[in-house]
């Protein structure tokens, strides 16, 4: 705990634990929000930190950034002790809390950036270069002089991300960055974050969106009831929990249940078999192969593929661990 030596890792947590005293009726009890988290994240990694609501994600982020003091264990973020070295750490970390704005709601976006540049002691040249870069990449040009409170959700989120990245932090922590965004905004944001990664920025993001995880993260940490339930890549996660995708097909005419297909399992049928849901494991087959197998038996009019749900993935991990 006393060592502030930079061992090279961006995040190094060892037995990180946080308990809260909560009131339960009249009695007080101890709730363990994060329980013995040991993890090491290297520079340049892009890590998805997923778990159900209340699993301990926010508590972990607060301990990583020096907002909360751990009850036990230790953590170094960017080689610094988050609580003791909070002010030095703030210069190296950028955090986007989806629900808590860093911007001044009554000020134009441009003015918020100017204040943040002063807060992070950027020189005038650094400020104008970096602002111009972020404005271009996040397409903020159209609303720089609009007060923050008048922005749409998508615009505000882009402005928030620019605000958190203005001082070019080594580590960027994003808490539900794509929540509530439309498909196009999500896509743009993911492209931007992919670009940031190429600069060597380390990303840690919490999300409920499997699309975020698939497109942005090469490593996934699953936290459940405060404990690390999984640490690995996405294919490995699918193998571990057998998370299946679902192919939904709309057929030209009613059909009996499509059982016995190679690599797919019939889940349910609607409207006398006009719509059928088929589960398949993305590790073993592809949506195209399943579709081909269905097409041999019936004419397909329309189809959708449903991604595994994060809550479901977490539930399966939990069930598997018991």
């Amino acid at each position, binding site marked *: 705990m006393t060592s502030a030596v930079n061992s090279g890792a961006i995040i190094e947590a060892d037995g990180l634990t946080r308990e809260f005293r909560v009131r339960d009726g009249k009695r007080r009890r101890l709730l363990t929000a994060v329980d013995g988290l040991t993890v090491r994240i290297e520079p340049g990694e892009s890590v998805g930190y997923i778990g159900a609501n209340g699993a301990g994600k926010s508590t972990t982020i607060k301990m990583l950034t020096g907002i909360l003091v751990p009850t036990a264990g230790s953590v170094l973020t960017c080689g610094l002790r988050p609580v003791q070295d909070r*002010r030095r750490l703030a210069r190296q970390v950028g955090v986007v809390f989806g629900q808590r704005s860093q911007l001044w709601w009554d000020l134009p976006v441009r003015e918020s950036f100017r204040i943040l540049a002063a807060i992070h002691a950027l020189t005038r040249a650094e400020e104008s270069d970096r602002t111009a870069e972020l404005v271009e990449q996040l397409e903020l040009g159209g609303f720089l002089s609009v007060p923050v409170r008048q922005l749409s959700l998508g615009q505000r989120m882009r402005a928030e991300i620019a605000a958190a990245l203005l001082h070019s932090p080594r580590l960027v922590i994003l808490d539900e960055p794509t929540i509530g965004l439309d498909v196009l905004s999500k896509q743009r944001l993911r492209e931007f974050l992919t670009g940031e990664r190429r600069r060597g920025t380390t990303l840690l993001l919490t999300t409920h969106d499997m699309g975020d995880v698939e497109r942005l993260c090469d490593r996934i940490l699953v936290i459940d009831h405060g404990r690390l339930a999984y640490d690995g890549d996405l294919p490995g996660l699918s193998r571990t929990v057998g998370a299946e995708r679902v192919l939904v097909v709309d057929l030209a005419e009613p059909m009996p249940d499509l059982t016995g297909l190679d690599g797919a399992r019939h889940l349910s049928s609607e409207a006398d078999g006009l719509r059928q849901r088929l589960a398949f494991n993305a590790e073993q087959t592809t949506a195209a192969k399943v579709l081909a197998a269905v097409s041999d038996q019936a004419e397909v009019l329309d189809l959708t593929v449903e991604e595994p749900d994060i809550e479901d993935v977490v539930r399966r991990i939990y069930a598997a661990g018991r």
Partner: protein
Amino acid sequence: MASAGAPVTGAAETAGLRERLRPYRAVLASRARSQRAYRTSFALDLGSSALVGVVELAEVWVLFSNVTALGGMRFNQILLVFGLADLAFSLADLSFGHLDNLPDFLRAGTLDVFYLRPQPILLQLITSDLSLRRLARAAVGAAALGIGLATSGVSWGPRTMVLLALGLVSGYATFAALFVWAAGLQFFLLDGAEMTNAFVYGGRYAASQPASVWSRPLKLIFGFFFPMAFTAYLPAVTMLGLPGPDWLPAWLGWCTPAAAVWSWLMGLLCWRWGLRHYQGGGG
């Protein structure tokens, strides 16, 4: 928030200080701009703030239309006390009063945002806003102080000037510390703003009264623990050459800086304690 008494060792030092103050200047300047941006609303704010000051002054006047002296002081002398207290409090309220909003930050979780910036939390909070409308109230206080000084029989000289300057600066600091103290307690109370307001605004009210009429428990609480008597009454008594009441001798009028230091010690201790509680680090 300038660091008082920093030795001037050259341009580099000044530039360093300017750079350190840059974040605070940037926020405060934008707050001031945004308040003045809506002129009508700002004018109304100023008007209502002035009205509150005038009503409180009228309260003192009404009291004195029924009695000739209170606690050994005549109306003009009370004006001196009222003016000192109100001017110092209004200026403290202008620059520290928004610490009252801490419970909102705590409920919305927005205090966390301050942790992500490389400045001390308390300094960020203090400089996060500026209530310019309080200037109107400060003007009422200044007017009362001016009239009090001119008509209460204060003998002018360096002694009075020093007492006045010490009293105003220390009074401002003492009230400011009271806001910090109250903010520190909000971490524990959450819905306790009313309780702490009783001390902050009750303290302001007590400060504008002659402490000679207080009962002994009140003298202990607002004379020493929250040293309200030091913000106005004691400097006024010393300036006027009046004898102080029991427990509050007139020479204490020279000790106003000590009261300010004591208030800040208590305020910062309370703040630190609250912040630790928030972070859950014990203490």
